[in-house]
């Protein structure tokens, strides 16, 4: 995690080129792919890619391990679904409602979690997420075990019917791409540099006069908000919000995507999301083996493959990706 970060500062000049190229390749891939691959699958990948990138903002760039990111993803998904279905809001407003919910939850959970460091931080975020999972299980509007089903996709800005699979795809594609560009911008801003400094040495950053608590909270809220955006989009794509999205399994999955793709790499989470979503789709018939394989991938990544797919590729090519 830290070695990837140190490289980032030394290869500033050529990293701009390699990252730009990688961004272009990713964009072109997702622009062409729906003609060859089932669009719903691709939209699922895009939503989870955004979710994983939002998570990576914390773990990869601030060194904070949240084990409860399903909280923001899942609750945003519930609220977006509820807004679209029960309040009959147009899709863009439903997404705003979902994303704002995640932001508020992020402020509260972040404020509590940053009061403890290291391993406690992970346990607190997990416990808070579990608490809100139990609330979702009991709350009336979430539909309990059934979830919120048949969520209407509606018309975007009153003009474009999202019930059309391709229109929906273009919408998701544009939103996710814009969000990824935003994350890239955050990472490379002066604010992002302070975050990396906190990751490398928090005590020293404090002694340089930075109020690290505020930076950590800001990063936490940004990450939660973007995870919420991913969850809201997902609710519209699948027209469903369910307990799966708030369960701790989902928090684990996003960690897996990021780890497999490469912690602290810009494109790692995208590749990781693709791999994990593809694996789940193709292994769906094998039932509980998915869990076993996910677990095994975790163990193998931690022991032998800590750079992840993209991190390893970047290391081999000597560029930052």
């Amino acid at each position, binding site marked *: 995690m830290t070695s990837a970060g140190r490289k980032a500062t030394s290869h500033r000049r050529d990293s701009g080129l390699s990252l730009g190229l990688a961004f272009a390749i990713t964009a072109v891939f997702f622009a062409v792919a729906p003609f060859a691959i089932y669009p719903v699958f691709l939209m699922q990948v895009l939503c989870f890619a955004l979710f994983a990138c939002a998570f990576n903002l914390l773990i990869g760039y601030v060194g904070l391990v949240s084990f409860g990111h399903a909280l923001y993803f899942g609750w945003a998904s519930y609220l977006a679904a509820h807004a679209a279905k029960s309040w009959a809001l147009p899709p863009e407003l439903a997404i705003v409602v979902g994303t704002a919910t995640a932001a508020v939850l992020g402020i509260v959970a972040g404020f509590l979690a940053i*009061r403890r460091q290291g391993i406690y931080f992970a346990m*607190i975020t997990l*416990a*808070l997420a*579990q608490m809100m999972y139990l609330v979702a299980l009991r709350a009336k509007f979430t539909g309990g075990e059934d979830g919120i089903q048949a969520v209407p996709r509606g018309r975007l800005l009153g003009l474009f019917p999202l019930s059309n699979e391709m229109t929906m795809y273009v919408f998701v594609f544009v939103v996710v791409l814009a969000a990824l560009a935003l994350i890239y911008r955050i990472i490379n801003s002066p604010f992002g540099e302070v975050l990396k400094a906190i990751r490398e040495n928090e005590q020293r950053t404090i002694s340089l006069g930075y109020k690290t608590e505020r930076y950590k909270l800001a990063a936490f809220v940004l990450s939660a908000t973007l995870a919420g955006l991913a969850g809201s989009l997902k609710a519209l794509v699948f027209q469903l919000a369910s307990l799966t999205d708030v369960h701790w399994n989902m928090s684990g999955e996003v960690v897996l995507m990021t780890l497999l793709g490469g912690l602290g790499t810009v494109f790692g989470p995208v590749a990781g999301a693709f791999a994990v979503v593809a694996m789940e789709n193709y292994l769906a018939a094998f039932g*509980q083996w998915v869990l*076993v394989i*996910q*677990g095994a991938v975790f163990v193998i*990544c931690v022991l032998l493959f800590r750079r992840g797919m993209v991190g390893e590729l970047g290391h081999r090519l000597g560029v930052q990706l």
Partner: protein
Amino acid sequence: MFEIFGIPSQALFGQLLLGLINGSFYALLSLGLAVIFGMLNIINFSHGAQYMMGAFAAYLLLQYLGLNYWFALVIAPLLLGVFGVVIERLLLVHLRKLDPLYGLLLTFGLALVIEGLFRNYYGSSGLPYQVPDALRGGQNLGFMFLPNYRAWVIGFSVLVCFSTWFAIERTRLGSYLRAATENPALVRAFGINVPRMITLTYGFGVGLAALAGVMAAPIYNVSPQMGSDLIIVVFAVVVIGGMGSIMGAILTGFLLGVVEGLTKVFFPEASNTVIFAIMVVVLLFRPAGLFGRAA
């Protein structure tokens, strides 16, 4: 039969008893987590899965070898202790110099593998495990009915918890352990085999989880997911208590079990979230935890 705050005494003491039972498991599991964390600097995410394996070990010993509860109480922790030693030697040993985050991720993966395997073979529904013959029935205490098995679980876990505390805080071996937690390099220089101590500590922690699993088998059904939800609550318990002190972990475990039991009487709908709510309050007013040293 009398009433307290408008609640029949039977219900009140019944829930208090259930609370103490849950508290016993919280105490045993958070104790194991604290011991492992002290030595390995790892949060053992697979603790819940290992607790579940303990319960399954009891079930399988009875099913296939005809060995009853009392044998299981000894054999299951030993078996799982060996399992822990193998895990430590094969996997965790490679993480010594890394960020503790990797230990969390690895043991999380391990928990998924274990739970997935057990779900494959035993499905998600629970398997019954009988209360041992010697502990059937119960005592009528006048104000409540006390099942013998539950009394045994509480008594025995108190005994195990305090023996562990005594072994760590009051014996020579325990003093080595505490010294190695503070400064492993120095203790090694005195000629003590610290890596072996780390391995055995992990095995011991896993054995404790398995022991809790055996004790839980007759109370809850034996099922593959019995550990995963419990371990998250135990994490909250650990955050509340702080892992700096063995006694702190034990007391917090029992205390929170009782609080949870009382909540079930007075606010039933909040009973499964109350421990998390307490965690929030503790984080607000005493961020280092009740017994914690500043992290």
